[in-house]
């Protein structure tokens, strides 16, 4: 009991993650806390049993003779088959629910890209496809499309609405963003730890990633798939700013007049 309570308490109070900066990050953190609680309980429990057995049942100096001849105990074994099964089932269902809320189960091809009639090519979904938008309060705001190109060893961000090409990803806080990502040479991955999101960028098959940033700030964009010697240096920045700041940036950089979104 103490173990369970202690585990829950640690799980709820542990803070091992960076700040959360997108709609699905708090959902993720909820999952993390649950997993951490269960993990702590199991780990401390099992290690406790091992250490206790080692101390309690150790052979004292000069002692000979055997332990008890206990070859098994069916009810006990059924019990500890059932417990992990139930835990695993619970974790599975819970994470499925989390996944659903993050938008992972939405069928592919429902991405935010307006030009979907033109997509004869195979588009592969990442997490957060469309779902992140439903979760956000601004459900009616159309997502902001951005095209990401990854190459050795940089990310390029292209805003079709203003024909802007940028080395940094600027996004307005609170508006759903829809990334369509393509790789020029080898596999890369787009990862923003503060968003808790990652998607491989695969040459030959564009991938989608949707999310809604919530917390203004500058966060790293990290390449998370070995892509060559400078893989460690392949980083960029995502700038989450207020709608006004974003607008100012957009107007200052755009090359095309835009029909108001």
């Amino acid at each position: 009991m103490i173990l369970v309570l202690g585990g829950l308490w640690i799980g709820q109070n542990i803070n091992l993650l960076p700040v959360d900066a997108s709609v699905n990050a708090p959902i993720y953190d909820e999952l993390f806390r649950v997993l951490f609680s269960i993990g702590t309980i199991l780990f401390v429990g099992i290690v406790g049993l091992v250490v206790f057995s080692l101390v309690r049942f150790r052979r004292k100096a000069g002692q000979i003779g055997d332990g008890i001849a206990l070859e098994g105990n069916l009810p006990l074994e059924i019990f500890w088959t059932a417990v992990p099964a139930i835990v695993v089932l619970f974790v599975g269902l819970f994470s499925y629910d989390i996944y659903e809320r993050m938008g992972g189960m939405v069928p592919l091809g429902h991405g935010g890209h307006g030009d979907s009639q033109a997509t004869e090519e195979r588009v592969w979904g990442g997490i957060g496809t469309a779902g992140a938008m439903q979760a956000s309060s601004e459900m009616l705001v159309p997502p902001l499309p951005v095209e990401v190109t990854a190459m050795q060893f940089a990310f390029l961000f292209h805003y079709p609405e203003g024909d802007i090409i940028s080395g940094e990803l600027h996004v307005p806080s609170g508006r759903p963003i829809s990334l369509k990502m393509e790789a020029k040479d080898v596999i890369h991955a787009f990862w923003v730890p503060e968003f808790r999101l990652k998607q491989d960028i695969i040459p030959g098959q564009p991938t989608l990633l949707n999310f809604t940033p919530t917390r203004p700030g500058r966060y790293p964009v990290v390449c998370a798939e070995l892509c060559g010697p400078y893989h460690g240096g392949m980083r960029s920045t995502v700038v989450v700013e207020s709608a006004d700041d974003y607008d100012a940036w957009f107007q200052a950089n755009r090359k095309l007049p835009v029909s108001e979104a």
Partner: protein
Amino acid sequence: MTLTLPQQSKPPSLQPTGWLRYLSFSVDHKVIGLQYLVCGFAFYLIGGALAGAIRTELTSPVADFMPRDVYNQVLTLHGTVMIFLWIVPVVNGAFGNYLIPFYVGARDMAFPRLNAVAFWLIPPAGLLLITSYFITGAAQSGWTAYPPLSLTTPATGQIIWILSVLLLGGSSIFGGINFIATILKLRRPGLKLMQLPMYCWAMLGTSILVVLSTPVLAGTLILLSFDIVAHTGFFNPGMGGNVVVYQHLFWFYSHPAVYIMVLPAFGLVSEILPIHCRKPLFGYTTMVYSIMAIVVLGLVVWAHHMFTSGTPPWMRLFFTIATAFIAVPTGIKFFNWIATLWGGKISLNSAILFSCGFIVNFVLGGITGVALAQVPFDVHVHDTYFVVAHFHYIVYGGSVFVIFASVYHWFPKVTGRMLDENLGRFHFLLTFIGFNLCFAPQHWLGLNGMPRRVAEYDPQFAFVNQISSVGALLMALSTLPFLWNVIASARSGEIAGDNPWRALTPEWLTTSPPPVENWKGEPPLVTHPYGYGIPADQIDLKDASGSDLWSNGR
């Protein structure tokens, strides 16, 4: 139908004796087992040196210790050497060859020649791999060799890598066939399957995995080499190929490969614990079933390595469930081991310490594994140091700890001399602390944004990386007392006698070291390999405490 095999009637004088036979094409399973062990350990030292280079580079956030492409070569070599030249050959080849014929009551493996061939594929393959670094530059695309990266990095190094992995895969398949035939066909008359020591079951399961999955890796690497040499486009998106298909095929082997590395370790622990606890192995039957369940499930979970590769949702769901369920049979084994400890008379020697270190480490690795199996969790930490921490808890904290435990346990059998226990406990302490210091902080690194396989990183992670490197240094130092212990004890350790642990399994029922062909007379028939302990109703009540009785289910 019986007949005398012609190839075995070679006059024995052709087989060298004395220490020279360890360098020869010996067909004696014990010689081959030791060949695997020593050769594997040599490669472990090389792989360890490479790890040292990696950790040195990572003490500072900039790439200053070696050029970046060299870093990737070192990284690739480290992974390949540790997996294919150290853990797989040692937990399978070394202990399998030494112990399995004893356990089934045979005088050798089913195919002794094939066995020697399987071993002798390893040194050339390993040397090929290592020398490629000096001659042409080694492969740079990690042990996973994902295309298109592996198609665009320098071709010679990659081709040599493929060649050497193919050789090692071949060796592994030959070994697997031999183990299956030995366990199923060479059992001494009267010995039933359900009377075999647990390690036999583990090796049977492992060998099934080897035979079913390694050929797929071989085929895949052949296609990859076509892409490099003949400019076909299987995995080349520029020519209409598909890189994700490679990942599926690769992981179809490489997830089972992780069980190829850990199932034998499970088996070895199941042998060590009962002897030093003086108790029967708890739950023999459930242990057997859980091994088989792990084999079956292990074949259908591979795509959990590909949750961010654009796999469709149904696939992610299926592989999450399948993966999470592996935790159930694995859990059964752990609880059974703890129940084996419970109520025993445990000698706290090095073998037991390393075995219990294994339990502790593996439980942590298993817990992070189940977490990683959850797609939403994995999407954040995939390809980060969190994964590095997970699998090192499993392969180092699990398999390598068990290898050490096994060396302490079987050294008296192999050499006839005891290892020094104090040095052994010191070795354990140093390894356990160093290991946890090195890898526990890496969980945090991954969660907070440090990707894996990088030579340079965000300076905010410098301090934690330095802690990790200190841990690595401790681990490196911990091999010194071990090496000293092994060498000194082999020469002048305390004489062990035939059966210093008072064990019941057949390898202890002969001389130490055992004679060629294992027993002087008939092989013993051991139907209760774990028949230790005093029946509960004969236990001296003065000694028994409430918990003893409770654990008996009363």
